[in-house]
């Protein structure tokens, strides 16, 4: 599937929920509302048959940003979906019911940044030990 086609489809599907868009050769970044994440991720994983690479959570001091990276291998593209979360409402829909392999990375972001993934089947610690003090998030900058 061509790059332009993917960009066009994501734009159509997200409509007003698309907040920003930028591109570099072979790299596309979309900033979307968190309500649109599931349907865009579903489109990329199920229809485009993109491979889920990983997600990266960032504390930008004002917000927490999560980037979901997908690889469209036949076009050599990396499509990144950026979702911005308010610090007083760190909750987002889990992608694990749609994409099996997001299980680990959501657990990782949960324990390192304190994001709650709604609907995750098993949101326990991944890297940190089980008795890690609650409310301590190693990758947060405000602690």
């Amino acid at each position, binding site marked *: 599937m061509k790059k332009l086609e993917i960009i066009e489809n994501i734009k159509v599907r997200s409509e007003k929920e698309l907040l920003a868009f930028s591109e*570099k050769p*072979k*790299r596309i*970044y979309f900033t979307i509302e968190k309500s649109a994440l599931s349907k865009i991720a579903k489109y990329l994983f199920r229809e485009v*048959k993109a*491979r*889920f*690479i*990983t997600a*990266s959570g*960032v504390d930008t001091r004002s917000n927490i940003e999560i*980037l979901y*990276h997908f*690889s469209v*291998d*036949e*076009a*050599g*593209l*990396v499509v*990144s979906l950026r979702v911005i979360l308010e610090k007083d409402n760190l909750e987002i829909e889990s992608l694990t019911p749609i*994409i*099996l*392999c997001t*299980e*680990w990375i959501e657990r990782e972001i949960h324990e390192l940044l304190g994001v709650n993934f709604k609907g995750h089947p098993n949101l326990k*610690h*991944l*890297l*940190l*030990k089980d008795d890690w003090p609650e409310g301590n998030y*190693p*990758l947060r900058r405000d602690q």
Partner: protein
Amino acid sequence: MSKKVIPIGPYHPLQEEPEFFTLYVDGETVTDIDIEIGYNHRAIEKIAESKSYDQVTFLVERICGICSTSHPFAYSNAIDNLLEIEVPERALYIRTIIGELERIHSHLLWLGLAGHFLGYNTVWMWAWRYREPILDIFERISGNRNHYAMFKPGGVRRDLDEADFPWIKKTLKGLIPKFDMFKGAVIDDPVIRARTEGIGILTKQDVHDYSVVGPTARASGVAIDIRRDDPYAAYDRVDWKVITAEGGGVFAKAIVRILELYESTNIVLQCLDKIPKGPIETNIKDMPVGEGIGRHEAPRGEVFHYIMSDGGNGPARHKVRAPSYVNIASNKKAVIGETVSDATIILAAVDPCYCCTERMAVVDAKSGTKLMDGQDLIRLSQEKTARMKK
């Protein structure tokens, strides 16, 4: 029959991912598996935020002791992508040569250990012996047998000496007959074939579901390879092909790795012939605000680095995704329903670290008494092969 729990792990300090597998077995059959990682979490991503861009190159080189160049390779690609700079041609060829030599010694290491687990200790000894010349090449090029410190954003740190080329070519060509020997020992041996074909299978759908990468995906007939799909370094300037196999079992994974030995040798030889003269780095003056993504096809699959810059001296956020992070998770699919004597080789087939499997122990879930340890499990695996030989 009472259910038994087999804990595998947890500690081993050698590779980037110490893992802890808990196998639930019913008699001989594995009924469930629980995978835990994080026993030796070193917080590399957090440390990277306090280092300068130059220092991070050395930091990420220490993520893995076997494929030590994979992470600097992907990291340099990420910074080059962030800055959108042109890396000099000569540096691109040098990067390719280092990356491919590393694949050869990493695959040999896997083959040796796989041989050992199956009771083929000759293959194990061969692999160690013929891995040595590759390390000698690295020593001549970089002064180091591992942790070569050759990479930097914008280019490479050291130039290659043209006077070494004839010796490097001779050494590599001398290895090809040895690879034939491996091919013969593994592909043509009916016992290894019977022992490994059809166990630990990942279907094409599993490859997509678990998003596995590298030889683990290619052994299921899924032709994905970052070197071809998203070309970087000099991979689009040389002639090579992506190796795939059908079946998705342990045997197919071995075939992919053995055939990749030839491709990698071929790539290095072509690079040594084609490498142009010129500068080896682009000078980077300052870092703008922005983000970059770099990928590299490491011996185990795609390594992914994401860098976010706030214009400061070092990365504001550095995300690293090693291939084993997704490959190990797929063991959940591959190992359930198989027997304990096959579990050792299946869990090893994605090429994670082996110290874990060495530390396997069978414990009675009720009484907690130790019934078998790692040595026993390897023995179990070797005995099965010996039985099939008869």
